[in-house]
């Protein structure tokens, strides 16, 4: 037996499995769009919706011409002279944020739970008592790093890593099961771990394509840059991708048809879409649910991405979330390998 020749002729199984995954992906135009095109479209749409605009003036109803004159000079205020009844109605229906009644003492009518109302009150108060509070200087902030789009882009990258991991792996694996391809593969001596690994490697490789596209676009369109180190950002993304690859495999490990796995994927992803700070900060949720939100992998990923992109954090600054993601990747991969239904 000529062993060296046979060994040379044998392609490496992990390489072939990964190549097959990449080929199948790029030959499926729909999958390519959802992975690369969709996040771009989403960031364009949201970038336009939340672009920086001059501040909207607040509306104040006044009940006397003297007050109207006194408030004339206040910046960012739209005034309306109304009688008491009309003024109260305007306040109730949200047409004005504040009603100012002549005094003495001057009375402010407003709903303190509405931020615009509190702003209107402060503006009116400042105009009526010009020497009241100590003088301060307002410094408007429109620098890169603190705008909504700066917050949004890392969240979109995180979300994309999650959804392409879950769909790109979970759905594909279950389809292979329903088509009996898994059964055919385990009829060979193929290493099952290598089979699952090929999915993880595919996801990591994709990131090297996805990330430049998203980051390049974010820079060109919105001047969103990366404050920290680029290699660290890539590292964070790869660890994140591996952890969602593991989760995708786990979700797909038992499902017998694509409907079941679609439901499971949505079930896993929905809490993270809402609660992991993709579109708005997790700080908006009550204190009681914060520990739960912090334990979500997408929260960890988004936190790490924002730390590197916005705050310029170094490796020690993202160690916590990275550890959580790496642990999740290891646990889900091992669990998937254990409970996987091959036939």
């Amino acid at each position, binding site marked *: 037996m000529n062993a060296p020749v046979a060994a040379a002729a044998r392609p490496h199984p992990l390489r*072939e499995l990964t190549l097959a995954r990449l080929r199948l992906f790029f030959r499926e135009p729909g999958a390519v769009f959802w992975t690369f095109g969709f996040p771009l479209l989403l960031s364009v749409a949201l970038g336009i919706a939340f672009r920086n605009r001059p501040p909207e003036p607040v509306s104040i109803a006044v009940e006397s011409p003297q007050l109207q004159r006194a408030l004339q000079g206040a910046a960012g205020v739209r005034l309306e002279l109304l009688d008491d009844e009309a003024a109260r109605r305007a306040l109730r229906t949200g047409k004005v944020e504040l009603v100012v009644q002549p005094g003495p003492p001057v009375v402010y009518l407003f709903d303190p739970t509405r931020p615009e109302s509190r702003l209107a009150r402060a503006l009116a108060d400042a105009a009526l008592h010009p020497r009241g509070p100590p003088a301060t200087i307002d410094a408007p902030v429109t620098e890169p790093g603190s705008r909504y789009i700066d917050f949004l882009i890392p969240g979109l990258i995180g979300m994309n890593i999650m959804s392409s991991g879950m769909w790109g792996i979970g759905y594909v694996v279950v389809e292979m099961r329903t*088509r009996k391809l898994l059964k055919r593969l385990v009829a060979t*001596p193929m290493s099952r771990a290598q089979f699952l690994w090929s999915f993880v490697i595919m996801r990591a490789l994709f990131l090297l394509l996805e990330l430049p596209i998203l980051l390049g676009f974010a820079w060109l369109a919105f001047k969103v840059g990366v404050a920290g180190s680029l290699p660290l950002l890539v590292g964070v993304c790869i660890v994140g991708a591996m952890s969602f690859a593991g989760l995708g495999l786990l979700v797909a490990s038992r499902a017998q048809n694509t409907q079941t796995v679609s439901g499971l994927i949505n079930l896993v992803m929905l809490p993270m879409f809402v609660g992991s700070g993709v579109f708005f900060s997790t700080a908006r949720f009550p204190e009681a649910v914060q520990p739960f939100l912090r334990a979500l992998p997408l929260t960890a990923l988004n936190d790490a991405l924002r730390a590197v992109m916005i705050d310029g954090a170094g490796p020690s600054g993202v160690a916590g979330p990275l550890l959580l993601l790496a642990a999740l990747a290891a646990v889900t991969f091992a669990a998937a390998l254990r409970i996987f239904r091959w036939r």
Partner: protein
Amino acid sequence: MEAAVRCEKLVKKYGELAAVDGLDLEVRRGECFGLLGPNGAGKTTTVEVLEGLNDATAGEVEVLGMRWDRNEAALRQRLGISLQETHLPDRLTVEENLRLFRSFYAQGRPVDEVLEQVELTDKRATWTVKLSGGQKQRLAVACALVSDPELLFLDEPTTGLDPQSRRQLWDVVLDFKSRGRTVLLTTHYMDEAERLCDHVAVVDKGKIIALGTPRELIASLGGDEIVELATQQPLAPEELTGLPSVKAARRSADGIALTVEQLHLALPAILAHTGPLGLTRLSTHHATLEDVFVHLTGRHLRE
């Protein structure tokens, strides 16, 4: 030398239903062995247990002298398997699929050589989804051959294929066998079993009801020729069993079927007897395994 495949008292139950119900089987090295039977007879379940893809409820299984619970890794290296239905990835080419399967085996044959053997060389760059049924099936068999297996399992390799594709696949199997390798195949085509198999086991309801070479099984009918006839007036099969060279008679779907040893002796007597009853149809053919199956079960293979 030990048998290539041996199983004893094999039982596979799904709930109360026994898909395989105490099946004994021995496949010798270097032969092509056929499991012949109708759909639902338990052929696929049996083969999947032998392939280590399904667990038996009871019974002993030995493949190449090894057992699945102890030697799975070694066994997988030495088998070639083609399942009843496998959808290989639509958008991989013929060659990519074959290279993928080749990569799983420590030893094997060059991809080009296998492509040549199954006559898919000119389709090597074609996506699986664009292949015809026969080409897909040849690719499935190629994926089983690329490991250069000692034992090849083929589960209904030609079901649904056109005659030319079937003959192409038969050539692949005969070529494999001519190199001293063993084949175990299932089929519900008797011509396929007669053409390819050294031994045939007729399976019905999870049991083997007849076993032998195709010649032996046909000879068990008592005659090589089958005469089928119908008359206008009623005729009982028993009336014909005493005629010269008629070995057996039974009612068939639309008349009577006779097993005959020598046509030239039987036919004049049959014509003389049935003429007055208004003979409306008479045909003869060489006995096939289909006739064996009908003889044993009273049913046709594809009912």
